């Protein structure tokens, strides 16, 4: 990158806020989706909104694309850099600015770690509900970008339900406020549009969060079934009974084995494991838990355990939350997939996955948020065997095809990012994608903010995946690329 421009960045963020050394830049070459890697031209680490504005203004003036980054735990390549652009790391914007218990609001900077919010307010009986499995390290800014979910989103909703307002640096460097401390503000719901926009509309520098009062009691049940079908039937039974548990998670045998090998959660070795958590007033939870047990037994559960202490509960969750990483114990490499299906399609989709897995000769472990039909199939493979990585990617993508065919979606909570942009045209018709571009044009007409993510490129050609080919109209100077 031009040293003149680097000097401008240095003047804004200081010497220790700019990274240009190639070996240091490599730290930023990928996020949690490690099979895509790009080394950026520079990384800046601003410490204030003003510095973010300064950096973005420079990018705008010089037409340099930028990618914002939180903790880099994302699983769809949302924070994947651009070779000719810079990465704006928000790790140093990590202060909790305000805790307003009376109105149940917390104002944070984007680099604040998800779990720190709950830590901050738990002495007062509150918690921050969205709980991605990476919550010990992932940042609120990243959660906003990807509209992150988590096990408890079944009852409490995704990140978007808990973000009420944002201070945003737009791609031209101007500062706007979207939403605010009160709900349902007048005008367009731009805060709602911003959450889940994966960094394509600007950079959030302050976030107003809603915190939730901790329920009177929480009870967690573990039920062992012979198959995922039986476990799935129990899930349908629970929902049909009109219950909305805080979480319903399911794991298949391969996932159980991996979790056991990694964290010894004491899971029974079974074909389908269900983890059901209920929270609320004590009287209600007791009553419903009895019903859940009954439904599980009816559907064939042969072992049912209810955690008797906070420690037991933590151990049960540890196995589930460590499930992805645990795959490392049983396979050298794995791909985490994220898809959504209508709950009712579960048995059919699982047997299809099994068929595809047998065809490809690759093992697939299944971990999912069963209550809302959000699947996380884990495709296991060995990179050292030639061709297997490619095969694994193909299998992971075929699984997405199954989800869309079943009336579901290509992502539940990990986002589209780099990984799934070519699938957007499977889910959306051309006019639908065009409508989204209208929003993009309003925020980022120059296409500088994380420009290559979410939407399939090239926009002017037939939507084909692959490297960008300029459109003939563009070459002729008749149209410009947005």
């Amino acid at each position: 990158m031009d040293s003149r421009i680097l000097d401008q960045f240095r003047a804004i963020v200081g010497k220790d806020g700019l990274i240009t050394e190639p070996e240091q830049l490599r730290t930023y070459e990928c996020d949690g989706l490690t099979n895509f890697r790009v080394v950026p031209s520079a990384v800046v680490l601003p410490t204030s909104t003003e510095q973010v504005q300064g950096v973005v203004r420079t990018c705008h003036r010089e037409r340099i694309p930028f990618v914002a980054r939180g903790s880099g735990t994302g699983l769809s390549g949302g924070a994947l850099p651009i070779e000719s652009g810079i990465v704006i790391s928000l790790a140093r914007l990590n202060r909790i600015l305000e805790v307003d218990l009376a109105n149940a609001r917390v104002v944070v900077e984007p680099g604040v770690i998800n779990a720190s919010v709950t830590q901050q307010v738990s002495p007062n009986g509150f918690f921050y509900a969205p709980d991605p499995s990476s919550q010990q390290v992932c940042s609120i800014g990243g959660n906003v970008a990807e509209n992150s979910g988590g096990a408890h989103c079944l009852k409490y909703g995704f990140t978007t339900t808990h973000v009420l307002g944002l201070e945003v640096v737009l791609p031209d460097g101007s500062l706007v406020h979207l939403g605010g401390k009160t709900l349902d503000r007048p005008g367009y719901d731009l805060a709602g549009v911003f959450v889940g926009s994966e960094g394509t509309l600007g950079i959030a520098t302050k976030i107003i969060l809603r915190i939730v009062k901790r329920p009177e009691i929480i009870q967690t049940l573990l039920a062992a079934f012979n198959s995922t079908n039986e476990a799935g039937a129990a899930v349908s039974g629970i929902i049909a009974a009109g219950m909305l548990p805080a979480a319903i998670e399911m794991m298949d045998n391969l996932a159980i084995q991996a979790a056991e090998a990694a964290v010894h959660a004491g899971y029974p070795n079974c074909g389908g494991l269900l983890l059901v958590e209920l929270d609320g007033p004590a009287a209600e939870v007791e009553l419903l838990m009895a019903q859940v047990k009954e439904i599980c037994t009816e559907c064939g559960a042969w072992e049912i355990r209810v955690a008797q202490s906070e420690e037991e509960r933590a151990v049960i969750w540890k196995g589930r939350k460590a499930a992805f990483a645990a795959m490392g114990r049983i396979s050298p490499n794995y791909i985490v997939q994220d898809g959504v299906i209508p709950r009712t399609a579960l048995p059919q989709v699982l047997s299809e996955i099994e068929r595809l897995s047998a065809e490809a000769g690759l093992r697939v472990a299944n971990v999912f948020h069963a209550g809302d039909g959000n699947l996380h199939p884990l495709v296991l493979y060995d990179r050292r065997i030639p061709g297997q990585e490619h095969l694994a990617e193909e299998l992971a993508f075929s699984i997405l095809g199954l989800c869309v065919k079943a009336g579901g979606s290509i992502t539940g909570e990990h986002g589209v990012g780099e990984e799934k942009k070519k699938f957007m045209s499977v889910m959306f018709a051309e006019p639908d994608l065009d409508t989204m571009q209208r929003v993009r044009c309003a925020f980022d007409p120059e296409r500088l903010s994380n420009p290559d993510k979410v939407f399939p490129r090239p926009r002017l050609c037939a939507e084909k995946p692959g490297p960008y080919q300029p459109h003939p109209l563009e070459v002729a100077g008749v149209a410009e690329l947005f």
Partner: protein
Amino acid sequence: MDKKLVRELEQALGKDAVLWKTEDLMLYEYDGSVEQARPEYVVFPRSTRDVVQIMLLANRFQVPLVGRGAGTGLSGGALARHGGILLVFSRMNRILELDFENQRAVVQPGVVNLDLTRAVEHAGLYFAPDPSSQKACTIGGNVAENAGGPHTLAYGVTANHVTGLELVLPEGDVVRIGGKVTDSPGYDLTGLLVGSEGTLAIVTEVTVKLTRLPEAVKTLLAVYDAVDDATETVAEMTARGITPAACEMLDGWMLRAVEDFVHAGFPTDSAAVLLIEVEGLREGVEAQADEISEVCRLHHAREVRVARDARERDLLWKGRKNAFGAIGRLSPTYYVQDGVIPRTKLPATLRRIDEIGKTYGFRIGNIFHAGDGNLHPIILFDARDKEQFDRAVAASNEIMKFCVEMGGALTGEHGVGMEKNELMPLMFSEADLNLMRRVRDCFNPAGLLNPGKILPLGKGCGEIRARPLPVSATSRA
């Protein structure tokens, strides 16, 4: 009025679907607000195809196009402020699909809010958003204004219950956004469209969530001798993390007005009442109702009454929901305001409203969704007297300013419309408003959809035009 446009509209929709004579148009110059504006044409489409035709004609003749449901809106959203075509959805009133398993319904915009609940009650379901006008107002109008209601406290506003939309864009393209599932990838366009007051597109189909009817409902009436005691009760419930399904407050003056009209059994000698409803499982409801009663008594409620049966419950709610109607008996005109404040500021705000009333010489009644800090001060005045009208608007603006100063908002559920668009700078910076303008312009570049709403009119200063879309530009080239 352009005779040629009338002919083309009649050709496209049939003669019985187009009004253009002054005496016919006059019926459509009002909605539920104090505003007034007459359209030049009124049309009644029967299908999405009809709407596309109307949109294309509006484009060709460059006239404004404004959607309208039942016309019960309170901020002038359904008025043709700059003339043009008023598109009335009364003939697009079919429920297209009921999907009980996934708890979804697909409806046309003209379906009346309460009719949807009636159609699904037998399956133990209902449509949760419950504006006081729910017997008459349409789901399309609810979507446009992001309508709320007493039960918004627990269930959220309309936006929380809409999962998908079919739209006709200003160029006449039909687009489907969202669907039956929530949190679909890409931008949340459904969330953007809900509450956009008809300025981005015309909605022709709505997919909504259906909510399971609760097993048990308990309705409490807490009676107070001092307004502050009632507001302190609300603040304490919030602090304790109690979220009832609804928590409404009526001040003493409103109570007396309502009681005279509805005979719901409200104590007319009290200073305020809280109408609190809890829902859920029988056991949970009992426990919650007990805790709420305790909080009420702690804050000096002189009486906490529990509705004994459905009839008593209905009567209490009838009092609340017909309150605006009751005012009509007392004053030739009334102005229902809609503002939001953080719940912790309730006592201070009510005192300020009282002062404002005295300063401007008006009786201001208070009835509101106390649980979420959504106020509805009602100013009684006589609109035939121009001076009074102006004074009422000034008093109302003062209340709005105070709400915003308290960290609240200009509107909770009635929308901005043409009533509050000039007040938007109280809440938003020029940069914030410019971003909203750009969003509007990217959808509605010619400005034909519901012009003069939401955003301050200005005189073109600070207007930023977004670049045109390359795709539509090239496909049209």
